[in-house]
Structure formats: structure tokens, C-alpha cells
């Protein structure tokens, strides 16, 4: 089975989509060059925030450019990190002389490309720090946190880093905060069906009709195991339990984010949110902030993930700070 798509030439997907997206949000964002989304009115004197990654995850990453979030997003091909020169442009656009923090998901390709871009930027005298989001507990065991993938936790890290930068904090502080947000954030998801990279002619994976993939990444990379499809309450229980088992000292207040991967109906996402909230509260945690919707998708994949951020006062204040990006407003 292949997926029905409303596209033209598969190789033009990213550029045509960016054209439409940016035009529709032109009060907030603009294209700096073909693959670099920037704020419509550049921010003033502050640390610059660059986010980015492969395309196919819309509204990530261009949707998180705006006041209180990122200054620029570097966009790659579908499911492929942007190359160093695109990231370098984003760094230059975001730089206002106070240094730049890059926050991106921890994938081999992104690590290499963002790393190369940081070297190029350093050669131009721009101070660049990197924080790799690594919230997906399914992607490496405890003790190997730095090997974990970044999934919907991206949004929490972008939000906190963006708020810190907007609040005038210096680069080292913004970096510390982004790292702290990442350290306190854990996610895990399930996939119910695959998606198709345009031009590839095939779904990214095959899953029997009655099965789900537990721990699926946001590109269709397999998870940790397959199991029969279960009711939302049970799925939420498994995800929440796995997340909580990974954390040592459970704090009282958490933010809960449920992310739809693309093809899963909003009613399902909302039901999963309710189920995850109840699961967290049944385990003694207090869900004080909630977010539900499609924050980082996998084209038309079906499934969803649960993200929990264990809050302290600083993180909560940063989450609540004003933001005005196409995909996140406060």
C-alpha cells in the first residue's frame, strides 16, 4: 500500500511546502533563504535561538519561530537534517552579537550537520552552543541518556530556551536552562501505522492490522517492541509507567504534552491526554500544565506520544512566558 498525497514533484515537496507555510503565517515569519525560516521582525539585542531538523515534522520546525521561541529554523529534506550551510545561515540570521544557542533533536545526521555548522560559525567569530534534545526514553536505556533521540520534548526545550533568551539571559544561562529543560523532560510514543517519504514509493514500515509499535520515533524508526493494539487508557498507563520508571526523584508538579504524529484523530489525542493525566495523577503527580495537538509530526503517520516535564518554579515560569510563533502561543 502506498499513501495518497497531495503533492507535485516529490523532490519539490519541502520548498513548495515552506512557501505555503510561510505565506500563510507571514505576519509572524519569513523565509530568509529557501530553507531558513526567520521571525518577521527580527528580535533585538538578545541571545539567538536556532532550531531545526528534517522536514516532514510540521509544524516543526518553522512553526516554533517567533517571539519567545526561536529566531531561526533550519529546514532539511524530508526526515533529513539540514546541511551545514543552511544551519550556518540560520545561525547568522539569529545572531545579534550575544551568541547563539542551537537546540535540535539528537540524531546522527543532526549531530554531524549542526556540529559542522557550529565550527563554521565559530570560524566567523559567532559563539555557538548546542543542546541536543534527548527525551525519548524508548531509544536508549537509563544511564545512556545522551544516546536518546529527541521527539516531542523538543517543544518544551525550545519554549524554555526561547523564553530565557527573550528574557535577556546570557548565552551560558540560556544553555543551562535548555539543558535543564531537557534533563527534566521524558517522552515515549506509539505508532499505529506508517508514513511514506515522498519519492520513496513505500511506507517506512509495515505493521500488522492489530499491532502497534511501542517506542516508535518520529521518523518511523522502529521502537522497542510490537504489541497488540490496546485501549487508550492502557497505552497511556504503559507510556507513563515507562517514563516514571526512568526518573529518580519524582517531583510533584508536571507539564503533560500529548503529541499526535499526523493521522491520528484529535479525539484520540484528547482521549490519550485525559488517560495520561489520570495515570500521572493516580501515581501522585500533579498535572499543572497541559498541551495537546500536533506539535511534531511524522508526515501522515498514525500514533501519538506522551511527554512529561517534571517542573520546578523556573521551568514553569519559562513555559508560561509569552510566546507568539505559528505553532505555539501563550
Amino acid at each position, binding site marked *: 500500500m502506498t499513501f495518497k498525497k497531495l503533492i507535485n514533484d*516529490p*523532490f519539490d515537496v519541502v520548498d513548495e511546502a515552506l512557501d505555503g507555510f510561510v505565506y500563510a503565517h507571514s505576519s509572524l515569519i519569513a523565509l530568509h533563504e529557501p530553507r531558513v525560516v526567520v521571525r518577521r521582525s527580527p528580535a533585538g539585542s538578545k541571545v539567538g535561538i536556532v532550531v531545526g531538523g*528534517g522536514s516532514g515534522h510540521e509544524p516543526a520546525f518553522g512553526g516554533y519561530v517567533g517571539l519567545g521561541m526561536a529566531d531561526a529554523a533550519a529546514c*532539511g*529534506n*524530508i*526526515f*533529513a*537534517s*539540514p*546541511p*551545514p*550551510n*543552511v544551519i550556518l545561515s540560520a545561525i547568522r540570521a539569529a545572531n545579534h552579537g550575544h551568541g547563539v544557542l542551537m537546540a535540535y533533536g539528537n*540524531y*546522527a*545526521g543532526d549531530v*554531524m*550537520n549542526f556540529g*559542522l555548522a557550529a565550527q563554521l560559525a565559530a570560524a566567523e567569530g559567532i559563539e555557538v552552543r548546542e543542546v541536543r534534545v534527548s527525551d525519548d526514553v*524508548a*531509544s*536508549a536505556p537509563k544511564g545512556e541518556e545522551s*544516546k536518546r*533521540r529527541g521527539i516531542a520534548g523538543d517543544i518544551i526545550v525550545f519554549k524554555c530556551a526561547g523564553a530565557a533568551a527573550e528574557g535577556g539571559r546570557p548565552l551560558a544561562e540560556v544553555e543551562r536552562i535548555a539543558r535543564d529543560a531537557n534533563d527534566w523532560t521524558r517522552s515515549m510514543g506509539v505508532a499505529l501505522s506508517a508514513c*511514506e*517519504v*515522498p*519519492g*520513496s*514509493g*513505500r*511506507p*517506512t*514500515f509495515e505493521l500488522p492490522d492489530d499491532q502497534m509499535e511501542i*517506542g516508535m*520515533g518520529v*521518523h*518511523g*524508526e*522502529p*521502537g*522497542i517492541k510490537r504489541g497488540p493494539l490496546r485501549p487508550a487508557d492502557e497505552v497511556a498507563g504503559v507510556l507513563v509507567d515507562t517514563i516514571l520508571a526512568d526518573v529518580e526523584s519524582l517531583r510533584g508538579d508536571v507539564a503533560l504534552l500529548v503529541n499526535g504524529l499526523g493521522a491520528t484523530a484529535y479525539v484520540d489525542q484528547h482521549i490519550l491526554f485525559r488517560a495520561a493525566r489520570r495515570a500521572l495523577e493516580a501515581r501522585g503527580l500533579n498535572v499543572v500544565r497541559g498541551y495537546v495537538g500536533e506539535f511534531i509530526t511524522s508526515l501522515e503517520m498514525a500514533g501519538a506520544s506522551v511527554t512529561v516535564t517534571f517542573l520546578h518554579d523556573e521551568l514553569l515560569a519559562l513555559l508560561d512566558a509569552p510566546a507568539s510563533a505559528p505553532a505555539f502561543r501563550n
Partner: protein
Amino acid sequence: MAGVRECALAAADALELARDELCRLDSPAGDGDHGVTMALAAHAVRNALDAAPDASGADLLVHLAAAAGSVGGASGPLYASALLAAATTVRQAGPDTGTVPLVARCAEAAQAAIVNLGHAKPGDKTILDALDPAVRSLLLETSNTEMGDALAQAATAARAGAAATAQMTAAAGRARVLGERSRGFADPGATSMAIIIEAAASAFRGRPPRSATRP
């Protein structure tokens, strides 16, 4: 005789033909895009070749590195760094071009660059598992070997290395998460590397690369 340009064109042809196969190999453990990424790289390579009709071999390698790198992902920077290292090696060699030992040194430098950037090692189920046997094969050749023969030997070694990845457990890249479940299919990056070396060999023999003969 074939040079960098002919090899690159043969590789672009072969990669475009292998698009489906490479996507298929990237599906069970990866994100299903390797064929698309390499086809985009092939497209960029053609543009780079067209834009530099008179470039020297070393300069062409630099242009090819930029083209390969422009596609991003994991394979973009790895192939880019490999090609850049090869360009540097050719430059340092001075007038001594087109010899089998120089090609072997280029391949060796390319491998070192990939290791340096990606921190993987042979056996991790990556590009290196095709490149490493090819490098070792080339280093065994002497300056008396025909380039076509040397590359053909290297291509055979690369293809065998790529095939052997099917029995490996991934320790780098996206497939790492899968662990034991990653066994049973060849690594897409190792396969594209084998296809490229085969294409280079066939350019020297004036034959279409192996992959191009498939339906």
C-alpha cells in the same frame, strides 16, 4: 580513461537506479529515506559537474563534496567529508594523479574522515562496513595493477562487506535503537557505498554499473 567526472556520473546513474532498493533497506530499521537522499545527492552531483566543466580532479572532488553534503541527513555530511578528504589527498599528491596507490590513499583518507565525523567503527553496521574492505583491498594493490581491476576488486570487497551487514547488530545511526531486531537486512549506507564503488569500477571498464542492469 575514466576520471573523477566519469566515476561521479556513473555513481549518480547507479544511485538513481537504486533509489527504491535503498529506501527499502532503510525501512525496517531506519526512516525509509536513504534512496531519496542519495537520489537527491545524485541530482546535486550532476548539477555540480555541469557547473564546473573544466575543473581538475581535486577541484571536482571538492564540488562533489559540496553536492553530497547539500542533501543533509546522516549520509550527506559523511559522504561530503569523505570526498573532501579525498580532494585533500589528491592535492597533496601533486602531479602524481590517477595511480592505484593514490586512489588507495584517497579511500583511506575518506574512511578516516568518516570515522572522525561519525565515530563509528567497522562492525557497527554503517557505510564503513562497505568502505573498510574496499580500502583494504586497494591497499593490497601495487602501482602495476590496472585501475579498472583494482576498483573491481575493491567493489567486490565492498559489496561483500555490505552484504555482511545483514548479519550485524546496528551500533550507530538510527538503526542502533533496534539492537538485535536490526539483524536480517543489509545496511542502506553500506549498500550505497558499495554501489558507488561498483559504479566507479564500471566507469573504468566502460561497463554500466551492476545496479543499472537490474529492472
